[in-house]
C-alpha cells in the first residue's frame, strides 16, 4: 500500500510538472505581443520595453521557464494584465464559489447516478425511461438545460432565484468561503436556505450529464455483479433482494462508477465556465470567461493550473480510495 501511495503521488507530481510546462509553452507560443496589447497599441517602444522588463519577459526562454516553474510551485502565477493584481489573489477570491458549486453538483450527480443506475437494474418499469435518459440526458448541452431551467423555474414559476449566490447583504464572510458551511457555522439558517435556493438551478444544469454517465456505468457493473455465483448463493440462503442489493451487490459494483465520477469532474469543471456565466455565479469559471474576453493570458494560465491541479488531486484520491477498499488493485 505504501509503495502504491508513493508511486501514485510521484505520478501525480509528474503530471503537474507537465501541466505547468504545457501552460508555459502555450503562453510563449502565442501569436502577437501580449505586452504591447496590455499597455496599448499607441505606447512608445520604450514603454513596451520597460513593461517587458518589469514582467521579466525580456529574459531568455529557459530562464523564464525556470522562473515560472518556481513561481507556480509557490502558487504565484504573475500579475493579471486585466486586474493588475496577482492572478493568485484573483483566483483565491473566486475559487470558493466554484468549489461550492462543483462540489454540490458532483454530490448531486453521484446521488442521481446512484438512483438511475439502481432503478435501471432492479425495476423493469424503469428500463425504458432509463434508456431514454441514457441517450437523451447525455446529449443535452449544459447551456440549453440552464436556459430551460431558468425559463421554467425562475420566469414561469418564480420558484427559484435567477443568479448570484445570495440576495442577502448580511451574509457571513468566512471562514471557509462556502456559503452553505459558513451560514451553518454562524447559525444563520436564512442565509443557508437562500444559498441553497441559489445553488439548485446551476448545480442541476451541471449535474445532469455526469449523473447519467455515472448511472450508466453503475447499471452495467451492477448487472455484472448480479451474474456472480455468490449473489445466487445469497438469494438461495434466503436474503431479501433489498439486503442483497444494499449489503453485497452495490458495494462491489461501486468501483467503476467512482472512477467515472472522478473523470466526470474534469468535464464538470469545463461546464462550470458556461454555467457560471449564465447564472452570474462569482466563481473562477466566470473569472476565466472574463479573462478570455479580455485576452488575459496569465489569468487563463493560472486558472488552468489551479483547475488542473485540483482535478489531478481528486483523481489521485479516488485511486487511493479504491486501492484502500479493494486489495486487488495494486501496481
Amino acid at each position, binding site marked *: 500500500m505504501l509503495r502504491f501511495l508513493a508511486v501514485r503521488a510521484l505520478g501525480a507530481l509528474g503530471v503537474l510538472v507537465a501541466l505547468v510546462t504545457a501552460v508555459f509553452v502555450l503562453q510563449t507560443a502565442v501569436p502577437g505581443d501580449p505586452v504591447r496589447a496590455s499597455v496599448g497599441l499607441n505606447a512608445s517602444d520604450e514603454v513596451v520595453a520597460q513593461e517587458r522588463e518589469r514582467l521579466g519577459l525580456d529574459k531568455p526562454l529557459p530562464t523564464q521557464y525556470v522562473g515560472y516553474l518556481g513561481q507556480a510551485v509557490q502558487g504565484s502565477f504573475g500579475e493579471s494584465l486585466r486586474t493588475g493584481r496577482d492572478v493568485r489573489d484573483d483566483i483565491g477570491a473566486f475559487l470558493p464559489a466554484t468549489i461550492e458549486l462543483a462540489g454540490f453538483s458532483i454530490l448531486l450527480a453521484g446521488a442521481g447516478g446512484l438512483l438511475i443506475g439502481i432503478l435501471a437494474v432492479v425495476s423493469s418499469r424503469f428500463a425504458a425511461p432509463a434508456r431514454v435518459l441514457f441517450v437523451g440526458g447525455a446529449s443535452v448541452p449544459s447551456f440549453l438545460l440552464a436556459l430551460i431551467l431558468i425559463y421554467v423555474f425562475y420566469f414561469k414559476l418564480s420558484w427559484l432565484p435567477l443568479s448570484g449566490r445570495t440576495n442577502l447583504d448580511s451574509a457571513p464572510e468566512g471562514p471557509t468561503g462556502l456559503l452553505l458551511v459558513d451560514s451553518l457555522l454562524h447559525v444563520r439558517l436564512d442565509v443557508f436556505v437562500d444559498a441553497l435556493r441559489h445553488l439548485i438551478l446551476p448545480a442541476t444544469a451541471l449535474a445532469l450529464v455526469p449523473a447519467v454517465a455515472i448511472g450508466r456505468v453503475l447499471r452495467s457493473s451492477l448487472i455484472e455483479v448480479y451474474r456472480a455465483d455468490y449473489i445466487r448463493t445469497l438469494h438461495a440462503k434466503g436474503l431479501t433482494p433489498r439486503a442483497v442489493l444494499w449489503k453485497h451487490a452495490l458495494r462491489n459494483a461501486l468501483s467503476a462508477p467512482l472512477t*467515472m465520477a472522478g473523470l466526470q469532474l474534469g468535464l464538470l469543471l*469545463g461546464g462550470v465556465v458556461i454555467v457560471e456565466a449564465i447564472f452570474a455565479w462569482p466563481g473562477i469559471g466566470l473569472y476565466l470567461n472574463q479573462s478570455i474576453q479580455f485576452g488575459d493570458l496569465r489569468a487563463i494560465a493560472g486558472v488552468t493550473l489551479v483547475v488542473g491541479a485540483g482535478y489531478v488531486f481528486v483523481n489521485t484520491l479516488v485511486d487511493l480510495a479504491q486501492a484502500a477498499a479493494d486489495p486487488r488493485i495494486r501496481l
Partner: protein
Amino acid sequence: MPVRGVVSLGSGTEAVTRRGQASRIRDIGALERVGLVVLLLLLSTSLVAPWFVVDPVIPVAPPFQAPSLQHVLGTDDVGQDVFSRVIFGLRTSWLSAAAVIASAIVIGGAIGLVAGARGGWVDALLMRLTDTFLALPGPVLAIAVAATLGASLRNTVIGIAVVWWPWYARLVRGEVRALAARPHVDAARLSGVSAPRLVLRHLLPGALPPVIVTASLDIQILVLTLAGLSFIGLGAPPPAPELGAMAARGADYLFASPWIPLAPGCAVFILAVAANLAGDGVRDLFDRS
C-alpha cells in the same frame, strides 16, 4: 458528455477476417437505425440547404418575430432568420467535429502505430506522454489552448484536437500490440516483407474497426464540446452562425423571445442524440459478441 472509454471489440484480427459477415444492417437496433437516418439527413440537408435558405448574416425581417410560416424559427435581435442560422450552424458544428476527429486520428494514430510497432523505450516514452495528457482535465485544457491562441473556429478545433488525440494513440497502440503477436504478422515478417509495408498492410488495417467505432461515438461528445466552447466566445466572431454563440447572444432575450436562444440549443441536442444513436449503431455493426 459521457467520458470516453477505450472501445474493446475483442481482437482486431477477427474483425478484419470476419468483416464479410460482420457488416449487416440487420445487426443494428431499430432506435440506432433511426439515429443513423436522422444523422445522415441532418448532415446532408445542412450541406445542401444553404443554397435554399435565406442569407444567415443579413437582416431579412423585423427583429424579434415569433416563429411563423415565413420564418419557421422566428427572427433574432437584428432580424436575421433563426432557421437559416441554425442550418448553417449545424453544418459548422459537424464539420468542426469531423475536423477534430480527423486530426485526432492522424496524430493519435501515428503515435499509437509507432509506439505499438516499435515497442521498447519508444513505446514507453510515447505512452507516458499520452497518459500525461489523459490525466489532465481535457475541456479545461482545450479552453486554455483555444483562448490563448485567440478566439476563432480554427483555434477552437486545434484546442480540442490537442486533448483528443491521446485516446486514439492508446487505442491504436493496443490494437497494434495485440496484432503484432499474431501468426500472420510473423509469417509476413519471415517472408521478407519490409517494415513500412508490414505496418501499413498487416498492422494498420486491423486497428481500423475500433478506430471507426470510437470516432462515430465521439461525434456526439465533440458536437457538445464545440457548442460549449462557442458559447463562451471561443469560436468564429459574430455574426457567423454558430450554435453555441447564437445561444449565448440570444440568452439576453430568453424571456421575451425564447426561440432565439433555445432553437440553436435544441439543434445541438438533436444532432447530439442522433450522433449518439448512430454511434451505437456503428458499434453494433462491428461488434459480433
